[in-house]
């Protein structure tokens, strides 16, 4: 039986701040964050873009969360939890005295309601599939059952979740926004408009939403993490072009440019001594890759795929995007557990590539197509790849299309021989290697309309992946990550992808703001962990 008890000390550690620092930072002040697009929805069951993801995280909470600035799981609305020996039953003891923004106390019934709601087909949650391992999910998701039979309220402060199969990623799923707790009465009151009238238990509560102009968050005075959040108020101004946001930031009118530094101004901004202390760089769970459709000739031949992988000069591509990334040689990004730092993959080697093509009987090269999204810098990257491939005799014609059309082409078995994933590349939903497999490299994703654009499906690896995800015993955690590491290097030996780079994140903020390390490039709260940002002026 695995038990996780939260003591006072552990609780302070969980916040990622030393006890003294926590006491020193005063609450107060405010900040302005800008975005280009309007906020789509703040309903945690529905919101699934990188703009609303961290906003929702500040309004709502789930049973689990991550230590700020890291990918380390910690209990949040749960005070402690136990896992049965067979890894199938999770019993969560809830924190007491947690209140919703409407003043009502949160209980285990709310957790059950919220999970049932996500699984309910009427909610149309894009995240419903994450909950597939919970017992009774199929019946709940096709509407034949009222809710998830595997989620039971033991008493007001205890919830028991039974799984249909062991799932080592389950605690990560409980930390997703989709698992956030919502009060039934508020959902009933606002119906489909709950997304513009959000009520949660989070650090901030939403107090104003003026369409096309701004969304205002104010500090939740009843928040259960003492001393959080730091700011009294956050104003999200929308409809601001990134370049305009940068000008305003320079003038001190804006505190965080939510869309980051626009590519056209990147080098100038990075070199500007004015901004030296205002830019924070960090890693993210992202890999940009070229897929090769293994169901289309000649990419059914592993030698051809490897030749392509060896012919692409990744350093040059990183230079094209002004060094905003590091080159990649395997599907997993370096920040992800299971990344193999010793693996070198298919290194850049033109001669070796030509040799492999000759062995495959394609010494004279061949003609193929490279699909790419038509927004800068993607076509320029595709051109670099095109030139590299021309170097070994492969003539790749570029198909530059709207992003949604490229996604549609990738989901067809016989349409796109090669796709440069830029702009649509995989960013992990949660920091577990499993999330980089199923939808994009596993057999489950190699279906019409799926995201496995290389259509690579290795039954043996699928079986190993399934077994790895069934290793739920904490003592097996390291062995599980090791197994995933081997699965991913085994995949790369078959080269269905050419991993090109892992994008770095750059957050630009005004000098008025500060916070604990890592929160301005938080791997989970993208772009910023709003709860921990503080105003130097309020100190």
């Amino acid at each position: 039986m695995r038990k996780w008890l939260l003591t006072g000390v552990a609780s302070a550690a969980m916040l990622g701040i030393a006890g003294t620092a926590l006491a020193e930072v005063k609450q107060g002040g405010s900040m302005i964050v800008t975005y280009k697009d309007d906020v789509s929805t703040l309903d945690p069951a529905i919101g699934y873009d990188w703009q609303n993801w961290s906003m929702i995280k500040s309004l709502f909470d789930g049973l689990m969360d991550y230590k700020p600035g890291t990918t380390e799981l910690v209990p949040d609305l749960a005070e402690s939890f136990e896992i049965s020996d067979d890894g199938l039953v999770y019993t969560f003891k809830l924190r007491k005295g947690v209140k919703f923004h409407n003043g009502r106390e949160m209980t285990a019934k709310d957790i059950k309601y919220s999970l049932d709601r996500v699984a309910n087909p009427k909610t149309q949650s894009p995240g419903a599939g994450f909950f597939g391992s919970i017992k009774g999910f199929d019946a709940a998701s096709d509407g034949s059952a009222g809710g998830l039979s595997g989620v039971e309220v033991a008493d007001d402060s205890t919830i028991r979740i039974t799984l249909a199969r062991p799932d080592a990623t389950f605690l990560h799923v409980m930390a997703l926004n989709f698992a956030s707790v919502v009060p039934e009465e508020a959902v009933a009151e606002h119906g489909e408009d709950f997304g513009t009238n959000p009520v949660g238990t989070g650090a901030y509560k939403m107090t104003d939403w003026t369409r096309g102009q701004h969304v205002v968050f104010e500090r939740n005075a009843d928040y259960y993490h003492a001393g959080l959040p730091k700011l009294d108020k956050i104003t999200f101004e929308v409809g601001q072009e990134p370049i305009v946001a940068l000008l305003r930031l320079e003038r001190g009118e804006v505190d965080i440019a939510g869309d980051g530094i626009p590519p056209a101004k990147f080098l100038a901004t990075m070199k500007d001594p004015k901004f030296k202390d205002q830019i924070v760089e960090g890693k993210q769970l992202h890999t940009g890759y070229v897929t090769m459709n293994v169901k289309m000739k000649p990419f059914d031949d592993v030698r051809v795929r490897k030749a392509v992988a060896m012919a692409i000069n990744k350093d040059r591509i990183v230079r094209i995007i002004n060094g905003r990334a590091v080159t990649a040689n395997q599907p997993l990004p370096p920040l992800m557990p299971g990344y193999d730092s010793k693996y070198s993959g298919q290194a850049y080697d033109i001669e070796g590539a030509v040799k492999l093509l000759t062995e495959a009987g394609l010494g004279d090269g061949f003609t193929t197509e490279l699909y790419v999204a038509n927004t800068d810098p993607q076509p320029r990257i595709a051109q670099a790849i095109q030139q590299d491939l021309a170097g070994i005799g492969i003539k790749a014609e570029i198909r530059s299309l709207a992003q949604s059309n490229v996604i549609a082409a990738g989901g067809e078995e016989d349409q796109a021989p090669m796709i440069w994933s830029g702009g649509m590349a995989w960013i992990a939903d949660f920091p577990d290697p499993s999330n980089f497999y199923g939808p994009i490299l596993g057999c489950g994703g190699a279906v019409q309309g799926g995201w496995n654009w290389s259509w690579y499906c290795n039954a043996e690896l699928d079986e190993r992946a399934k077994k790895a995800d069934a290793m739920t015993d904490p003592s097996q955690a390291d062995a599980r990550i090791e197994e995933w590491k081997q699965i991913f290097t085994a995949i790369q030996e078959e080269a269905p992808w050419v991993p090109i780079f892992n994008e770095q994140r750059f957050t630009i903020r005004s000098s008025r703001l500060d916070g604990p390390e890592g929160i301005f490039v938080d791997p989970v709260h993208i772009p910023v962990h709003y709860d921990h940002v503080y105003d130097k002026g309020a100190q």
Partner: protein
Amino acid sequence: MAAYLFRRIVEAAFILLGISLVTYVLLYLLPADPVRQIAGRSATQETIANIRQQLGLDLPFYEQYWRYLSSLVQGDLGRSYIQRSEVSELIAARLPASLLLMVAAIFAELVMGLTMGVVSSIRRNSATDQSLMVLSFVGVSAPQFVVGFLLLYVFAAQLGWFPIGGYGTFSHLVLPAMTLGFMGAGWYSRMMRSSMLNVLGQDFIRTARAKGLGKARIIFRHAVPNALLPIIAMIGIDIGIFMSGIVVVEAVFGWPGIGQLAWQAIQRVDIPIIMGVTLVAAFSIVMGNLLADIVALFVDPRIKLK
């Protein structure tokens, strides 16, 4: 008059129906699947099928279109796929900002264009005339995002006379209205110039001069009103041009209007919003033209109804 109006309104209804059909067909033919945009990349096939069915996107085209039309005549534009709010609410929240911008832009283009045209015509072939005509040529040909960013950079970021984008006060309105009005000003200055030259060469102006009227009185009392007639008809057409212009100008200046809404919806294949904004825009253009025709009727009694 009543018969004329009735005929025009029936025509307008058919135009709107045609536009709704063409837009719906185009959106239907898009290779992009809106359900996948809604469902996101982690959705299972079941989730995708479920959403498709709930939105009625699994139905044949004519049935989908019929459903849309039936709701439309009841004033229901549907719910946004991505924002999940009523499209009518989203448009209503943003329409005042766009209308304000358009009225201000019409004002800006008339003030800039007519002044330039009148000055050019009285100083015909002088250096002033030539530089104004070069400026009007720039106005007609410069892309609006270039003009917008230029004005923003010089007058807001560098000189600090105006705020850098945003909405709310009169000073927020100046630069976007100038940007949107600049192209029209180019057209109007050229039209006004030639129209003025035409009028100034006519007999009644010579008579006025012979009677010893002052120059200012001749120009403002006799020449300008006559030269204005062809311009009025153009303002109606402007609304159509503005409808495409606001997409760019609203994005540059962070102006919370329907152009920005449309632009975001197109990027996310949010079909109900694209349909809604297109219909509202088409409606405004049709109404604008109708209004311009009616105004012309009153201004110039020489126009006879067929």
